[in-house]
């Protein structure tokens, strides 16, 4: 299986190339700003500080979910920038629901998860309907819906907030203790949220659906050639709606590990910006279930080390943002370079093998 080996080689070459480019460019930025380059990379190569390792894993799981949500869209050339809005609306709805404690214990969790997926899907569904019926670009509508989500959530939060004396924090009612999801692993310095397991489950489901089902085939076909997909009988409108709903449903899960593991309510202090990071993670992971995992870990690791950067290397933590930004650019460039290179090599190899009389048919 020569070609399998080559494919793996190609898959690994691109991210390595991208990381190398990012390291070089960031070093240049550091030098230009008059900072020492050595200590910075030393920080990145050192073991994370106490409690940071757990945070990295938690962060990675959440980013992974967000990355998969974006990747579902990417797989058929839909650019769902709206994951950010979708997960916030969903997390708010789920927190509000779970906070009421209508269902006992674990059922409450399940109910909230289902609700989160439904709300996320519904919010993404608006984008799909606009695109399919009115031809509105999903990029535009999803950005706008992000803003609308911000407004809607803060207004509703204000309406339903569980106000506490002496605190100016606004948040939903706390989830009853019986519905807290126990940690997957408890360490001296922190915990790994129970619901990070969602990332694993979603990852497996994504891999299976994309590669082993007819739906996944239609999705990939539409992504790689819409005209060929249409001619093969795929209804692009139906696919657009389905893919968007699925993307939104996964986006709805993004806020869940944090909600049921640590925050227990949704409020003004909840984490934001995960949807945009998901776009970067999906790009780095090239929409591949394992690749996205790698991208999520890398992203979370860089986030996790940013504090140490300030303390141990005396460099502003924003440097991490520069590294992340450069890395996304480098990844996009590196993948395109490797893709073209691979295409040329393959064409040449096929021509050469045919010239040598090696064919798969019996006629050779």
């Amino acid at each position, binding site marked *: 299986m020569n070609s399998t080996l080559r494919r793996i080689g190609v898959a690994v070459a691109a991210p390595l190339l991208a990381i190398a480019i990012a390291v070089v460019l960031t070093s240049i930025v550091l030098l230009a700003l008059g900072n020492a380059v050595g200590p910075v990379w030393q920080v990145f190569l050192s073991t994370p500080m106490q409690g940071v390792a757990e945070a990295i894993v938690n962060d990675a799981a959440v980013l992974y979910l967000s990355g998969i949500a974006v990747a579902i869209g990417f797989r058929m050339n839909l650019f769902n920038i709206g994951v950010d809005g979708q997960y916030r609306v969903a997390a708010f709805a789920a927190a509000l629901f779970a906070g009421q404690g209508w269902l006992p214990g674990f059922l409450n969790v399940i109910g909230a998860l289902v609700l989160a997926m439904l709300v996320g899907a519904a919010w993404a569904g608006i984008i799909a309907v606009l695109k399919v019926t009115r031809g509105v670009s999903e990029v535009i509508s999803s950005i706008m819906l992000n803003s609308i989500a911000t407004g809607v959530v803060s207004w509703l939060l204000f309406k339903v907030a569980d106000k506490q004396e002496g605190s100016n924090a606004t948040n939903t009612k706390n989830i009853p203790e019986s519905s807290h999801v126990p940690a997957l692993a408890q360490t001296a310095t922190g915990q790994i949220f129970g619901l990070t397991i969602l990332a694993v489950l979603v990852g497996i489901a994504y891999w299976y659906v994309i590669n082993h089902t007819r739906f996944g*085939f239609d999705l990939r*076909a539409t992504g790689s050639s819409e005209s*060929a997909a249409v*001619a093969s009988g795929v209804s692009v409108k139906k696919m657009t709606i389905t893919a968007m709903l699925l993307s939104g449903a996964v986006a709805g899960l993004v806020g869940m590990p944090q909600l049921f593991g640590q925050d227990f309510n949704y409020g003004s202090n909840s984490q934001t910006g995960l949807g945009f990071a998901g776009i970067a993670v999906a790009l780095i992971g090239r929409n591949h279930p394992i690749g996205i995992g790698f991208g999520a870990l890398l992203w979370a690791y860089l986030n996790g080390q940013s504090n140490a950067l300030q303390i141990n290397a005396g460099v502003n933590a924003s440097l991490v943002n520069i590294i992340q930004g450069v890395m996304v650019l480098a990844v996009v460039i590196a993948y395109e370079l490797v893709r073209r290179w691979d295409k*040329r090599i393959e*064409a040449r190899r096929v021509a050469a093998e045919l010239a040598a009389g090696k064919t*798969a048919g019996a006629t050779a």
Partner: protein
Amino acid sequence: MCVIDTTDTPEAPTGVSGIAVADVTAPPSGALAVDLDGITKRFPGVVANKDLHLQVARGTIHAIVGENGAGKSTLMKILYGVQKPDEGTIRINGDEVSFSSPKDAIKAGVGMVFQHFMLADNLTVLENVVLGAEKLHGIGSKARDEIKRISDAYGLDVRPEMMVADLGVGARQRVEILKVLYRGAKILILDEPTAVLVPQEVDELFGNLKEMKSEGLTVLFISHKLDEVRGVADDITVIRRGTTIDRVKSSSVTSKQLAELMVGSQLPTPETQESTVTDRVVMQITDVTLADPAGGPALLSDLDLTIHAGEVLGIAGVEGNGQAELVETILGMRRADAGTVVVENDDITAWPTRRIRENGIGYIPEDRHRHALLLGAPLWENRMLGHQRQEPASKGWRLTPKAAKDDTQRIVEAYDVRTPSIDVTAGSLSGGNQQKLIFGREMSHAPRVLVAAHPTRGVDVGAQSAIWDHIKDARREGLAVLLISADLDELIGLSDTIRVILRGKLSGEFDPKTVTAEQLGAAMTGANTPENATTVDAQEEAAR
């Protein structure tokens, strides 16, 4: 191989080696505007151009003729800097040049008008012309004056303030030509300029070209319409299989001789054997009408068509007269505004594409890259495309890659698809092998009707004859075949019945045994004599 002006039927032997044409070797008089020497261009798996020579005298109109896939377009792209030759030299006005982009070519005075216009509909002519060339004469009155000056100088009749959306095809083409002249081109390349024009517009265009010639410009144009070529060109270069066959003076060659030069003698003929037509109707299209969503004349109007089991029905026509729309309507990718498409006992008019393809309509699309293949996916995934819901691609909602791979291997062997493995991407195969794979795929699902649009376009001669054999086999097995082609020899050779499509309407039936390419050509351009047309209609009436 759109040989209109020849009475040659494919049955007649086309002996080419002994053909005597004057001025074959004499160099053109006057200074050379373009001199290509020993151009070779290889693409993975194919040699597009091989040791090609082209000499064009300044101030002349030079035509390049050759079949589809002969390498004309690659040659023009090399001359316009879109592609770099692997070997050989390019001289423009005597100076050796090396273009790495069209920008370089324009700088050297070489401009190209593509077959597909590149104009923005919602801008005016002036805006379209200055777009990207703002530095030359600005975007205001100076530019307007320059456009008027060029338009008057060559009789182009282009009005700068018109919206491009309001222009017809001929006028758009003149805008494209003006765009190139505006940028200072002295050597003009036109890629199949007449393919989209009606006869009157063709005459106008040729008038413009002659005007340009008299002003000292050099015009190079690609065509495969031999009578047109002879009418306007001074010299003709014939290309076959990527290499120059001959250069001839248009005044000293007949269309028949040109056709023989173009086709060569090695070309297999597509003729079928004895008739296998039965009286069982397989496909019946009744009064199909398709309105133009943009509000123009109907794309298809009251189209009637019957195909019997074992019959190949050929549709001839100049491109853009409704062929693509007809195919897409049959396949459910467009919805007919009126009329029905019935296959055996199924009225498939309102069926979705998927159901149509799964119920016995095999589809060989005109543009296999856009409609039949996922170029970046392996062959076995391409085997599934279009038949995702059927075995061996899937069972229920699950894909069955193992079965698909086995069946792909079978197709590769049975249809002689030359590939080192079924895991390579479809994009890495040559056009002919891609087409054989598509053919094998469609034939694997027991089609009742095969819709084949330009099945041998852009494939090499070997694959061409293989595909013709497959069509003949399909016919013998009792399939109804709808064959759409621009290649009249292919149509005449393979079809049991030929009909001509013109502006969305079908002509009466022609018998391929007796019809000449000239008659078909006349019907294709609407130059049909009234008597002729009535006879055909009368025949049809009588047949009903």
